[in-house]
């Protein structure tokens, strides 16, 4: 792929240095051991999330991550699984692992340096903590702010994808560290939101570190949508799917292209931390939103801006609109058209032209202008007593007296239909 894979390390917990086979298990461990509220046992997603929960719900402050080794108790660091781990710690870890593997090789060769190396390595990461935490402190304010975003975002993410987008997009340009631009990107990928992402807002996020995170995150999404696309879809749905896939590929491409211009060493660790942090919660919730797209593909992809129900979607199809009288038409005329379906689609095509949008305003109330003609009710084209009509279509055609529907002078027909 032309990109270095940053995460060759096996997943490990930054808080307690334990190793795991799978990132999912790592996350479960973190939630159970480090992000669990000691009061109500609610499992949160991140350290800051836990802090906020304790403050809001229990009115208690918390200053250290539970069950964390000394030096790794920072509650403000937004770490989720392997995301958010400061670059320095990752390098330390890599070094440790390399040294351990070297040690094992050396041990095979019967060397005795391993013990000293171990001590040095243990001291190493903790000694790096102090300087690392200070540049991070400078980023605390924006990070906690972003921490607020991913927090509720992660939980309410699919929803935020719909309605939360516009506010987020407006906030992008002023935030130089470039964290928020990543969020809507990822969310768009997973929910297949429309392609009008704020592309100009993306360049500010630069470094290679967060790139791999979104790209890794995008990979599960893309196969999911691709598998959805492989099923036969209505043509419009297929196009929309392709749009989504096009979106995901282009969004992952553009950061690649623009980042060299914006590499700033000082901002790298925090941006990596925050943006990859932000990327991570959506990624692990991937399984649901990605599959959700299959289900709500009809709704989201075809009408990304509208909250449209399955019934509305279906009711717009021409075949369900054939019989519905339009202003200026009679129910009789409309009803008589469909049986001759081969009639060049004259009626159906005309009826499709103003598709039946839910909010359409046809003041058909005009039909009721006539007062009840002394009958207990008003007949909307009275159905004959059952048993007389064999055909399915009601025999309006016989011209009942003054059918109330549509024979009025066409109040608002834009043009004659016939």
């Amino acid at each position, binding site marked *: 792929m032309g990109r270095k894979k940053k995460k060759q390390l096996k997943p490990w917990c930054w808080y307690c240095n334990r190793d795991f086979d799978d990132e*999912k298990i790592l996350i479960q461990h973190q939630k159970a051991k480090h992000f669990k509220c000691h009061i109500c046992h609610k499992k949160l997603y991140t350290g800051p999330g836990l802090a906020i929960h304790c403050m809001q719900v229990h009115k208690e402050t918390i200053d250290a991550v539970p069950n964390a080794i000394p030096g790794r108790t920072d509650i403000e660091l937004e770490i989720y699984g392997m995301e958010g781990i400061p670059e320095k710690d990752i390098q330390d870890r890599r070094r440790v692992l390399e040294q351990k593997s070297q040690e094992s090789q050396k041990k095979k060769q019967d060397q005795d340096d391993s013990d000293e190396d171990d001590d040095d390595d243990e001291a190493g990461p903790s000694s790096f903590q102090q300087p690392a935490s200070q540049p991070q402190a400078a980023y605390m304010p924006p990070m906690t702010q972003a921490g607020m975003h991913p927090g509720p975002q992660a939980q309410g993410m*699919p*929803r935020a994808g719909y309605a939360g987008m516009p506010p987020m997009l407006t906030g992008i340009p002023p935030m130089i560290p470039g964290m928020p631009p990543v969020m809507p990107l990822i969310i768009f990928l997973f929910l297949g939101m429309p392609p009008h992402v704020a592309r100009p807002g993306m360049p500010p996020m630069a470094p290679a570190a967060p790139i791999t995170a979104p790209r890794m995150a995008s990979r599960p999404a893309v196969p999911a949508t691709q598998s959805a696309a492989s*099923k*036969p*879809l*209505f043509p419009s749905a297929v196009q929309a799917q392709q749009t989504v896939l096009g979106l995901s590929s282009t969004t992952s491409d553009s950061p690649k292209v623009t980042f060299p211009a914006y590499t700033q060493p000082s901002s790298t660790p925090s941006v990596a931390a925050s943006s990859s942090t932000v990327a991570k919660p959506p990624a692990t919730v*991937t*399984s*649901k939103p*990605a*599959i*959700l797209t299959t*289900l*709500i*593909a*009809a*709704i989201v992809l*075809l009408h990304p801006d509208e*909250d449209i*129900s*399955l*019934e509305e*979607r*279906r*009711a717009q199809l021409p*075949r*369900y609109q054939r*019989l*519905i*009288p339009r202003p200026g038409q009679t*129910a009789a005329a*409309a*009803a008589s058209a469909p049986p001759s379906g081969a009639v060049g689609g004259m009626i159906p095509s005309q009826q499709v032209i103003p598709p*039946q949008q*839910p*909010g*359409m*305003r*046809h*003041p*058909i*109330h005009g039909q*009721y202008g006539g007062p*009840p003609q002394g009958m*207990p*009710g*008003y*007949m*909307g*084209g*009275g*159905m004959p*007593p*059952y048993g007389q*009509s*064999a*055909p*399915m279509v*009601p025999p309006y055609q016989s011209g009942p007296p003054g059918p109330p529907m549509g024979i009025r002078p066409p109040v608002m027909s834009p043009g004659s239909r016939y």
Partner: protein
Amino acid sequence: MSLFGTNTGFGSGGTGVFGTTTTDSHNPMKDVEVTSPPDDSISCLAFSPPTMPGNFLIGGSWANDVRCWEVQDNGQTVPKAQQMHTGPVLDVCWSDDGSKVFTASCDKTAKMWDLNSNQTIQIAQHEGPIRTIHWIKAPNYSCVMTGSWDKTLKFWDTRSPNPMMSLQMPERCFCADVVYPMAVVATAERGLIVYQLENQPSEFRRIESPLKHQHRCVAIFKDKQSKPTGFALGSIEGRVAIHYINPPNPAKDNFTFKCHRSNGTNTATPQDIYAVNAISFHPVHGTLATVGSDGRFSFWDKDARTKLKTSEQLDQPITACCFNNNGNIFAYASSYDWSKMSRVNDDCYVHYYIQQQNTSILLSINYRGRGLCRTTSF
């Protein structure tokens, strides 16, 4: 079965008009199939109220028709009558005395069907398709409530062409339920409004949705004194929220649960999440049934917060469900609900299934709508 007319594809449409004996996923629960089902997806089902003897089932479909069957005690179904709209029928309901059926359709009208005379009269008109229709019987008035995609909720005295009252909603009506004196309407954009119907209908409260996805179905439940006390709300994301109107402890009393998802406990593979198409409460036990796009139905006990039963998977989504007035019969409709948008053809084999609860044997104090035994003798 010429009672329902001779349109093409009718008789040939059903593989199991008289019941099927093959072990198919079309009727895996081996329930009784209703004869002469409609030709297109069924949008709504309604059983007759207890004021009428016998069980009559009304079903509205996307084939623009409303059909009526009589369900006999031995499980046999007899088609009785049919009426038409000029657009797909989206909702049906009975009047409280069981003599009239109200039908709401995409053709923006609602009709009242007098079953005795088999005549229909148009009683309502909206500016958009009418999505819900309910009969309200109050001590000092009675009317029909229609909710439409034109964002209005209108109340009709069936004798007048003008509505008694018209209430504006923030968004299109997606589903509604009425149990006097409470009415709940769920709209687009996750809107949720509760109305109180005493004296005259008025908006009672707008509730922030407990769900994060589009609302799909709602059903009111009652407390032990048979007063409406809350509702169950289903969304497209395989989740149902149980919400009380005035609970003593909202945080604890209100909850949501996931349903109609595949891979229940297996977290390794991603879950398929399906829409909850309809919710029905058992009139006696208070348990609820949910039916979903995954082709299953489930029974739940909301007080014990447990799942009682999930059916086998049908080969099509289940689009509507309904209990009869004493809870012995659970009807559910298997038909396409447009959830996958991947149908190649428009033909849809549609069957009703009736599941009869054998209460005389299985009912016990702890038995809450559980274990629907199959009427295998049919």
